[in-house]
């Protein structure tokens, strides 16, 4: 691959379909919820019965505009729906209502987090609205069609071919998914099919301006699949070129079991989608007022949060990136901050303790860890030296299991530190009196013995004394002579 890498460059464009977070479908009042028994969320409209008409869901428009604004797109003041005609059993009307000549959003870009904080941009061609098709279930002797998904609202996000590596494709998808989740535009769930990606892949000799023949790779249902499939496809195309063969423009399916892409047999007929304006729907008029209203209601996006975390909270780009990938985690982190002076401690805590607890429990964040207020209280105790960091970790682990509050848990486990200077001074004096020989050695210059005295005092106080105060008192007492 490395020799190839020097010789060839891949050119990758991604088409992402994201299901919009609406309660109902895009053109009818059926539920858009995933997972219902077959053909229950279906009506005459979304099953394409004769004479029925679509009526557009206002929420779908607002969500698509929200995403368009977040991706720096131009929002078209007037766009239209068109019919894309083809026959397939999961497409009940024989056409998909989509947008073609005038998409709702055009241009724009997605900024990818760079490893050293230097961001890369992937430009977008467009974001448009369309309806989803139904689902084909393959039985041994036939196929069965469920129209629950038919008419679920989608946005299709089409990137320019600005991506060069499978890893970059993965980074783009992660950033886009993170964006749609921050924006509440989509739940971004790849397993349930609410976030799907097709890749257009071609290769060309490094330095060449012209694009190579591209293939369209489908059927990748995780980020890892996308990266693997693209890597495989790049390699396959390079090998063909190296062998002096030609690449066919075609659609290929990723086979995750075998780790290969294969040509689709069903597309043997030439397609001619015969797009034309949908006469059953009026043009989509977007007023400047609506755009402004949506703009003012926009939540902060991951890129903005990353910038704020590094500039205002003093986190490293890496920390900012980890904390902002999931909106839930980032929100959790921010909910810890009020009342705390040390943001860095909070960030480290979320990145280590919170993420570990989530991973170990295998449950969603909200269920896996205590409410942020309780964890904030715990960290505040550390800041106030009421408990040690280790004690806080023990308390956190207990709280994750018991669901009890910070105060109660710390008390229950007896983790409170003794910061009473008089008590500590008394303990120090006892140790100094008992260890006269060592004290003499220390005073003669064996500085290393200091740790020994601290340990003895801590031991005498049952491990709960504030180490900072022990240090101060010991230094004073040992120096005084």
């Amino acid at each position: 691959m490395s020799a190839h890498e020097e010789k060839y460059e891949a050119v990758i464009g991604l088409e992402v379909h994201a299901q919009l977070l609406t309660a109902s479908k895009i053109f009818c009042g059926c539920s858009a919820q995933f997972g219902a028994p077959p053909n229950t969320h279906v009506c005459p409209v979304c099953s394409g019965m004769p004479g029925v008409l679509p009526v557009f869901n206002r929420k779908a428009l607002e969500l698509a505009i929200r995403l368009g604004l977040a991706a720096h797109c131009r929002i078209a003041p007037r766009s239209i729906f068109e019919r894309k005609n083809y026959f397939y059993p999961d497409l009940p009307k024989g056409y998909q209502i989509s947008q073609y000549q005038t998409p709702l959003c055009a241009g724009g870009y997605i900024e990818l987090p760079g490893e050293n904080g230097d961001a890369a941009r992937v430009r977008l061609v467009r974001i448009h609205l369309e309806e989803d098709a139904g689902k084909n279930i393959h039985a041994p002797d036939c196929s069965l069609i469920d129209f629950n998904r038919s008419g679920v609202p989608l946005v299709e996000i089409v990137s320019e071919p600005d991506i060069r590596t499978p890893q970059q494709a993965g980074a783009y998808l992660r950033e886009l998914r993170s964006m749609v989740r921050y924006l509440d535009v989509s739940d971004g769930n790849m397993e349930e099919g609410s976030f799907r990606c097709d890749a257009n892949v071609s290769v060309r000799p490094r330095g060449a301006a012209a694009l190579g023949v591209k293939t369209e790779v489908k059927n990748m249902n995780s980020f890892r699949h996308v990266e693997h499939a693209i890597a495989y496809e790049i390699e396959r195309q390079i090998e063909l070129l190296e062998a002096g063969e030609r690449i066919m423009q075609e659609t290929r399916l990723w086979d995750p079991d075998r780790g290969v892409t294969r040509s689709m047999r069903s597309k043997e007929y030439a397609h001619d989608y015969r797009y034309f304006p949908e006469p059953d729907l009026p043009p989509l008029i977007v007023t400047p007022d609506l755009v402004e209203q949506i703009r003012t209601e926009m939540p902060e996006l991951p890129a903005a949060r990353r910038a704020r975390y590094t500039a205002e909270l003093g986190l490293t780009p890496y920390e900012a990136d980890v904390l902002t990938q999931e909106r839930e985690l980032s929100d959790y982190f921010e909910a810890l901050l009020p009342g705390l002076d040390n943001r860095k401690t909070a960030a480290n805590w979320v990145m280590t303790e919170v993420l570990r607890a989530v991973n170990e429990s295998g449950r969603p964040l909200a269920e896996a860890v205590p409410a942020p207020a309780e964890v904030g209280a715990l960290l505040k105790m550390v800041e106030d030296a009421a408990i040690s960091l280790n004690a806080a970790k023990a308390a956190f682990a207990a709280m994750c299991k018991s669901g009890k509050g910070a105060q109660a848990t710390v008390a229950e486990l007896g983790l409170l530190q003794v910061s009473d200077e008089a008590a500590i001074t008394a303990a120090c004096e006892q140790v100094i009196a008992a260890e006269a020989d060592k004290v003499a050695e220390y005073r003669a210059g064996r500085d290393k013995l200091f740790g020994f005295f601290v340990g003895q005092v801590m031991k005498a106080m049952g491990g709960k004394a504030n180490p900072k105060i022990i240090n101060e008192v010991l230094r004073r007492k040992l120096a005084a002579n």
Partner: protein
Amino acid sequence: MATDKRGNKINLEQVRHIALLARLELTAEEEQRMLGDLEEMLEYVDKLNQLDTGAVEPTAQVGEIGAAMREDTVTNREDPASILANAPAAREQMFKVPKIIE
């Protein structure tokens, strides 16, 4: 509008291609008749080329727009039986078709 060397606007091969796009099975006799009918129609509509429409915007819709959008609420009740009642073939509450090959 394009014509071939013999001045024809459409040939049998195109008729077959269009019939496949439209998923219409035509008998050999129907194909021939279709060729003649389409040729006649296409010749007739050629008169539109007498008009200069260079600066004219197309009209896709007329009339007034109604309540152009609906609110995002679930209003339909579940009734799979009525949706499947007219199905030529069904199994497990789904529409049955010959096996799809991908």
